[in-house]
């Protein structure tokens, strides 16, 4: 190879000579030696205190380019595929001593030779040899980071215009990300100011997130690049996308549900990443691998674009996965996946209503089967869930049973293994009493009521005698003492008083016994006598107050609740929202909405727009715009939420008509707004929201009316459109038949004539 010297910028002559040496090595084979030399050189540069120098070398088929400041450097060697197929691998090494590399980079103008690189359409690979670095005992802060760029950011930084991510675009993009993450609006101006470094998810572990070095963004993970070395189908402009691709396999486990603990920062990242995938797809014709990866990515995170109920579940998953982390951080309860939150309960009840308007009646087996089959779980799993939830084994589901089954399905979709037996919190009688009692916001009460419930259950079911005395004793003693002690005392009291022969000491055992006992008589009557008894018995309200109004629900976004919170801010967060104003809508109309509401989803204020409908993947850019707007709000500190609270709250009545509980889940905006809600509703106190309340109520009512009207019209439109299409279909068929018949006639005619 012939080395061609390029001019260096801001480098000393010695450095130039060193680069020469380095280049000689590069032209020889040993890549590792190359890297070693690189590092030595860079170390020297650090000593020299070179600031913002850039250097570029080129030869016939490679470019090496580097950039650095006193602290960080990275080199990129871009290789071009030779005619004989030999691949020259790019090595990008980044040594970080501090993490302020970025700011210095931003302030430095780019060297024209780097720009030359961009124009040079080569196949560019970047690999980070972290292992190598570690071997060299270099400073450790070299985590593997993922990066993504938001499409808006992409636009702003000019990559979209140029068609690829060059260094300029890349730097600008990262700075915009930092701006977005620190709550500033995403504008070019915002990058002028001093920004903290953008935070990215790290592959390794969360502790290294803080160490994330944007300089590493040119470098990628070790393992993956070895694979990418084999691939040689990338253009220079797809470099950015390639990086995303390699990110995506690692991103998807991070962004997908259950067990990964994370911090709140992940929330915008997962959204952004999802947008990124679609954004990048829009940007270029994505190579096949990207699409593959995107499909896989879409699978766990966004669900299919198919029919509604799968989307329902998918959105459940997505919102659950996204909201899980903040929720867990706010969780007052021990991490119990089998506890149904308030929002979940509302949602389940609404689903029940859609199948069976009478809440006290049953859902038949076939109806439930069709409904649950839409969740795309396997039949054996659904069968098992049914077994768990249908405790009286009558082939039909009451409301509590239905809620339990639904909750199990939701949990299963989120990856929780199904339990061996129905958990206590999903038992029908537990749920039934939970439904009836006023919800209270007290964890202590909850545990107390559980124990009292079990206590109550036992005498009721085992002896069928009025146990008010025992219960009262339990209640009296409870406030004074711990719930657990109460339990035992109450148990003892009950056993002493009633002289119960059975052993009540083991709480977990008894529910099972109850189940079996209840199952045995096999009361196929539809009177729910046991439940009615429970209703009678529990007179005092030691209710299981299900949950404080948590920020994020496990089940998907029941924005309904948030709406009600917004509309009735006088109500404390724990109370039940008022019932929906409109009658529940059947599935059909909701499905029809799916088609009609594709368009006007962009803003959070589409009047009358049932936000949950429609294919939200299509109007992505508009979504992303609003996404961006919401991002700063998301990341704003709680102290600022009061200001943002009122505008956000005003947005809510527009977006969420009250009686549209169900299909709203898909909406990432909704989820994001839900995320906002915690900061909004959790922190904004009641007095501050009260002034907004009366104004909001009136305008919201008007808007609701308008929304309902619009919705009705849209439904009618949808129905008529479908009818039209069906009739067209029939017309076509009839036409074809006619043609066939005419042909036959003509064939026959000559015969008759003859």
């Amino acid at each position, binding site marked *: 190879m012939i080395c061609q010297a390029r001019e260096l910028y801001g480098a000393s002559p010695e450095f130039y000579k060193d680069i020469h040496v380095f280049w000689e090595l590069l032209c020889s084979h040993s890549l590792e030696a190359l890297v070693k030399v690189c590092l030595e050189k860079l170390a020297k540069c650090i000593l020299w205190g070179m600031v913002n120098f850039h250097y570029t070398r080129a030869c016939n088929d490679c470019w090496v380019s580097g950039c650095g400041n006193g602290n960080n450097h990275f080199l990129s060697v871009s290789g071009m595929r030779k005619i004989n197929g030999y691949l020259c691998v790019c090595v990008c090494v980044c040594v970080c001593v501090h993490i302020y590399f970025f700011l210095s980079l931003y302030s430095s103008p780019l060297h024209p030779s780097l720009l030359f690189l961009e124009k040079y359409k080569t196949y560019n690979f970047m690999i980070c040899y972290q292992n190598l670095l570690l071997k060299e005992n270099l400073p450790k802060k070299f985590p593997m980071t993922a990066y993504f760029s938001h499409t808006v950011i992409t636009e702003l930084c000019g990559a979209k215009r140029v068609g690829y991510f060059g260094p300029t675009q890349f730097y600008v993009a990262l700075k915009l990300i930092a701006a977005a993450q620190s709550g500033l609006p995403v504008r070019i101006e915002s990058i002028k100011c001093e920004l903290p470094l953008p935070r990215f998810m790290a592959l390794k572990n969360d502790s290294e997130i803080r160490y994330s070095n944007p300089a590493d963004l040119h470098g990628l993970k070790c393992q993956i690049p070895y694979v990418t070395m084999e691939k040689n189908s990338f253009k220079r402009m797809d470099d950015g996308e390639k990086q995303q691709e390699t990110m995506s396999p690692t991103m998807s486990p991070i962004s997908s549900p259950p067990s990964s603990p994370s911090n709140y920062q992940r929330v915008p990242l997962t959204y952004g990443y999802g947008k990124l995938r679609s954004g990048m797809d829009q940007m270029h014709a994505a190579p096949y691998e990207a699409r593959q990866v995107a499909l896989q990515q879409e699978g766990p995170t966004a669900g299919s674009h198919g029919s509604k109920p799968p989307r329902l579940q998918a959105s459940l998953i997505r919102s659950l996965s996204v909201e899980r982390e903040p929720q867990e951080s706010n969780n007052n309860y021990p991490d119990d996946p089998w506890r149904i939150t308030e929002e979940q309960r509302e949602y389940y009840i609404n689903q029940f209503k859609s199948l069976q308007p009478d809440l006290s009646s049953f859902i038949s087996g*076939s109806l439930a089967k069709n409904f649950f089959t839409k969740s795309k779980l396997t039949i054996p799993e659904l069968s098992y869930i049914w*077994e768990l939830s249908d405790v009286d084994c009558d*082939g039909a589901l009451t409301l509590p049973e239905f809620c339990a089954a639904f909750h199990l399905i939701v949990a299963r979709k989120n990856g929780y293994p199904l339990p061996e037996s129905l958990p206590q919190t999903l038992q029908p009688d537990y749920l039934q009493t939970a439904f009836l009692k006023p919800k209270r916001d007290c964890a202590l009460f909850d545990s107390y009521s559980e124990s009292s419930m079990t206590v109550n259950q036992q005498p009721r079911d085992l002896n069928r005698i009025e146990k008010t005395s025992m219960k009262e004793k339990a209640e009296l003693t409870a406030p004074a003492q711990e719930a657990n002690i109460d339990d035992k005392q109450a148990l003892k009291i009950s056993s002493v008083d009633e002289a119960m022969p059975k052993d009540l000491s083991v709480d977990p055992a008894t529910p099972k016994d109850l189940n079996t006992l209840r199952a045995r008589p096999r009361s196929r009557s539809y009177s729910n006598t046991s439940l009615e008894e429970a209703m009678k018995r529990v007179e005092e309200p030691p209710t299981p107050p299900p949950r404080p109004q948590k920020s994020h629900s496990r089940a998907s976004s029941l924005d309904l609740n948030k709406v009600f919170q917004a509309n009735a801010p006088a109500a404390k967060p724990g109370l039940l929202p008022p019932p929906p104003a409109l009658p529940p809508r059947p599935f059909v109309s909701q499905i029809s909405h799916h088609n009609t509401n594709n368009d006007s989803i962009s803003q959070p204020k589409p009047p009358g727009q049932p936000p949950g409908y429609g294919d939200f993947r299509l109007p992505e850019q508009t979504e992303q715009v609003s996404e961006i707007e919401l991002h700063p709000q998301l990341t704003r500190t709680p102290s600022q939420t009061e200001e943002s609270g009122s505008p956000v709250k005003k947005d809510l009545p527009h977006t969420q008509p009250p009686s549209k509980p169900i299909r709203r889940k898909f909406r990432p905006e909704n989820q994001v707004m839900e995320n906002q809600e915690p900061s909004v509703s959790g922190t904004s106190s009641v007095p501050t929201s009260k002034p907004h309340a009366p104004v909001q109520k009136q305008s919201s009512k008007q808007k609701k009316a308008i929304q309902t009207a619009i919705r009705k019209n849209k439904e009618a439109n949808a129905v008529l459109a479908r009818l039209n299409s069906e009739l067209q279909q029939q017309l076509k068929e009839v036409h074809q038949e006619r043609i066939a018949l005419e042909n036959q006639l003509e064939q026959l005619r000559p015969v008759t004539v003859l």
Partner: protein
Amino acid sequence: MAVCIAVIAKENYPLYIRSIPAEHELKFHYTVHTSLDVVDEKVSAMGKALVDQRELYLGLLYPTEDYKVYGYVTNSKVKFVMVVDSSNTALRDNEIRSMFRKLHNSYTDVMCNPFYNPGDRIHSRAFDNMVTSMMVQVC
């Protein structure tokens, strides 16, 4: 002790077979299969006139030197066959009846599940647990 429990469909194919210990599984399957003839014989012997009063519990189908085979048929012609170790002489007829009743109840629960199609193999965990308890308990 119940060494093998089988649920046979109306068309005489097995819906559920489980046996302990595992090495004699084939032998038990064969036994159950041959006992089906006896079941049919008993059912037809009861006569069509007595359909209403037909006893569900068929009693001892046939004994061998090692074990006894009991049968039970439901109104939908689903047969339960139980193979019991002969060495366990303490096992009385009433106990067998109660075991069959439990089996019948569990089977009904399985049928109630809308996700279960009649004629499918039974995969219900509750049913499995019940059968396990019977096989172990009678042990």
